[in-house]
């Protein structure tokens, strides 16, 4: 018997996410080498809220990447020696995150259960000591390890929370110590001085805010990790699936839409915007006409029209995908492409105006005088000088798109219903909130995760805008870190 390797499946969005990751690393290297960019990014991290948000977003990115390695398990078939070993693969496409959270997927209950419950939410007719009574039955998995749940439950939860907090605190302390040591090495400070300075928030960037965020996340993650395998941390939904798992999976969907859809706008927005501004004349007229036509249609309607057409196309061509996951992923990918193709007008307008200004500057005229061709001027002289606008717009759009996804899913043109997404969760929560008694946990989970993610994205975007937009700096007197020195 040989262990068979799983068959790796590279979904469309996976490929793009990893390509994006590589691009991010290349950009990070570029920032490291260029003093100007480094100064700007230092400004971003001098904003406490932006730095703290970056930590939260980093964690979400990590989850997204874990959820972006997909494979289909090889099925162990009872192979007879005579026949050639043919390998069959599971029809389910799994990701690395699914493997880590395997317990959450397998522990499916019959229906609703409250967060951390050991009993079902609904009553059933059970026979107790010979008489039939309406009682909530025990859950199949949540709290199944307790022999006498009525007495043990609270103690077990308290023990796990305390243990989780302790583990979280230790991990946070180790990570903080490691970070402070790094800071001390870079700055050439002694260990105690480094600790004191980070504590007083007296560094070039706001390490204190970042480490506090990190500690908060560790303290949340510790109990969650200890509780999630034996209980349903955030309860279960109508079909008995773990809500915490759904929320974690939704992060990837939100992240993919936020990044992919903004990236998809860039080629058209940057290319056409710079061309319109640089060439002027009829090219400018044509491009202006194009984006005015595009922006004249209300965005939701345009997206709805495109998504409906894509749906018709996918229904006609079932040969494009092997499994349900691949179909859902292709739909997500096409949704991002549609969002990109319909959403480039705003940035294009902005870049056109900027290119109109830049083309009159001396260095562009000097380049023209030296006989540099128009395409080379656009690529080498205009593009680098509008990159800050592109960066700001990209980061600002990110959070808006996550919110937009929820609305689109509600309207019925969002992601595939089989794919976990915040929009889908809210959609289901709508009917749950009108039940009696109220099923609030799905809604609360979607709310908590989504607001955290969007809030972090917004604060980060504000930091990036303040640091990179020269206009924003003028009337925003920045608070210099910790000017007060007591004693």
């Amino acid at each position, binding site marked *: 018997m040989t262990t068979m390797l799983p068959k790796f499946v590279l979904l469309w969005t996976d490929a793009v996410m990893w390509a994006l990751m590589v691009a991010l690393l290349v950009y990070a290297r570029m920032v490291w080498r260029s003093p100007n960019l480094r100064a700007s990014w230092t400004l971003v991290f001098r904003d406490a809220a932006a730095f703290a948000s970056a930590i939260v977003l980093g964690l979400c990115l990590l989850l997204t990447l874990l959820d972006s390695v997909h494979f289909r398990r090889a099925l162990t078939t009872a192979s007879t020696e005579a026949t050639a070993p043919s390998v069959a693969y599971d029809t389910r496409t799994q990701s690395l995150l699914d493997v880590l959270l395997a317990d959450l997927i397998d522990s499916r209950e019959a229906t609703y259960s409250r967060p951390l419950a050991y009993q079902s939410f609904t009553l059933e007719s059970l026979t107790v000591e010979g008489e039939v009574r309406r009682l909530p039955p025990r859950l199949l998995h949540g709290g199944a390890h307790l022999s006498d749940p009525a007495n043990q439950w609270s103690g077990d939860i308290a023990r796990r929370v305390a243990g989780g907090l302790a583990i979280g605190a230790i991990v946070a302390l180790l990570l903080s110590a490691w970070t402070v040591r790094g800071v001390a090495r870079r700055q050439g400070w002694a260990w105690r001085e480094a600790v004191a300075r980070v504590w007083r928030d007296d560094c070039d960037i706001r390490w204190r805010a970042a480490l506090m965020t990190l500690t908060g996340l560790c303290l949340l993650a510790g109990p969650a990790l200890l509780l999630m395998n034996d209980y349903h941390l955030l309860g279960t939904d109508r079909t008995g699936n773990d809500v915490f798992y759904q929320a974690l999976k939704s992060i990837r969907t939100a992240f993919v839409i936020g990044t992919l859809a903004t990236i998809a706008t860039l080629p058209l927005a940057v290319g056409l915007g710079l061309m319109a501004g640089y060439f002027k004349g009829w090219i400018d007229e044509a491009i202006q006409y194009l984006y005015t036509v595009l922006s*004249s249609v209300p965005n939701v309607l345009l997206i709805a029209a495109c998504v409906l057409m894509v749906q018709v196309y996918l229904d006609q061509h079932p040969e494009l995908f092997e499994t349900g996951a691949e179909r859902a992923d292709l739909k997500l990918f096409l949704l991002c492409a549609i969002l990109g193709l319909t959403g480039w007008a705003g940035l294009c307008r902005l870049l056109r105006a900027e290119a109109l200004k830049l083309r009159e500057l001396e260095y562009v005229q000097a380049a023209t005088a030296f006989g540099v061709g128009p395409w080379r001027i656009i690529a080498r002289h205009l593009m680098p000088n509008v990159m800050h606008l592109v960066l700001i717009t990209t980061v600002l759009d990110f*959070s808006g798109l996550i919110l937009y996804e929820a609305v689109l899913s509600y309207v019925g043109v969002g992601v595939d219903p089989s794919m976990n997404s915040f929009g889908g969760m809210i959609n289901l929560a709508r009917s749950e*909130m*009108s039940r009696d008694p109220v099923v609030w946990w799905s809604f609360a989970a979607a709310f908590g995760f989504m607001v955290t993610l969007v809030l972090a994205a917004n604060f980060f975007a504000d930091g990036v805008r303040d640091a990179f937009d020269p206009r924003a700096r003028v*009337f925003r007197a920045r608070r210099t870190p910790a000017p007060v020195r007591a004693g």
Partner: protein
Amino acid sequence: MLSAIVRRIGYGVLILIGVNLATFFLFFTVNTPDDMARLNIGGKRVTQEQIDKWKVERGYDKPLYVNAARQGSERYTDTIFWERSVSLFTLNFGRADAESAGDIGHQVSSRMAVSLQLALPLFILQVFASTAFALLLVMFRQTRFDAWGVVLCVVMLSISSLFYIIVGQFFFSRMLRLAPISGYAPGLDAIKFLLLPIALSLFARLGGEARLYRAMFLEETGKDYVRTARAKGLSEPRVLTAHVLRNTLIPIVTSAGGYLPYVFLGSLVFESFFGLPGLGAYVIDAISNQDFAVVRTMVFLGSLLYVLSYIVIDIAYTWIDPRVRLT
């Protein structure tokens, strides 16, 4: 002035033609009427007869651009392109694709009244509330109040409008029973159905709008005329309302004017959550029924309103600021 308006109307017609060509291409060339019929009838086994019947009922059995079987001008008028695309310009929307939906024009005119009742008060209140809140923040700029106000704005705009609706319905309709959960009644009774959606919608957009307006106000407060106004001894509220507000009106009108089309189109999410029979709910129904004719019509109507509202905004500029001349 007049010639400028005429020129803008001309450009608007050009844009509408562009929108129409693009939607026609998207709906009839990327996917053929046969594909649409198959999807609309549904089910696995759809016979060609069923498809043909569906197409005849809706007039999709004609040729796309040129009807070679006809004579004279009917060669071009007896086609899908003429009946479904060109005739939109005369506001003749034709029949919906779904079995029960009926005439689109009738639906649009009756539903637009409902959407207006929701969106017009909302539009006016929105501009007032956002301006007032932003002015308050600017009044206390560079203080703790302003800083926390901006944080509040960011938190508010980070919450999806769906959350506002669900929580609002839960508290005000279910717990406190102050307003009906959903529904609509014509006449004065409509007020009690409209109050909650208007309030929630106002609240949902306040954060983003107020933050935007605050940035616009701050841009003005640094200018010389503001310093002059202060130097001559005007109080800060007077400086803000008389001078800064007046000069910020142009960007405010630009940003608020973007919502003008939606005053007529209504809100997709709010109307369907609160069961208001407006145009937004119509679109949602059309999308879930895969009624392409309605979606096409709404795309046209949306861009028509966009073009009209931009002409209105341009005229408003000259009215706000005498220095602006339409060219």
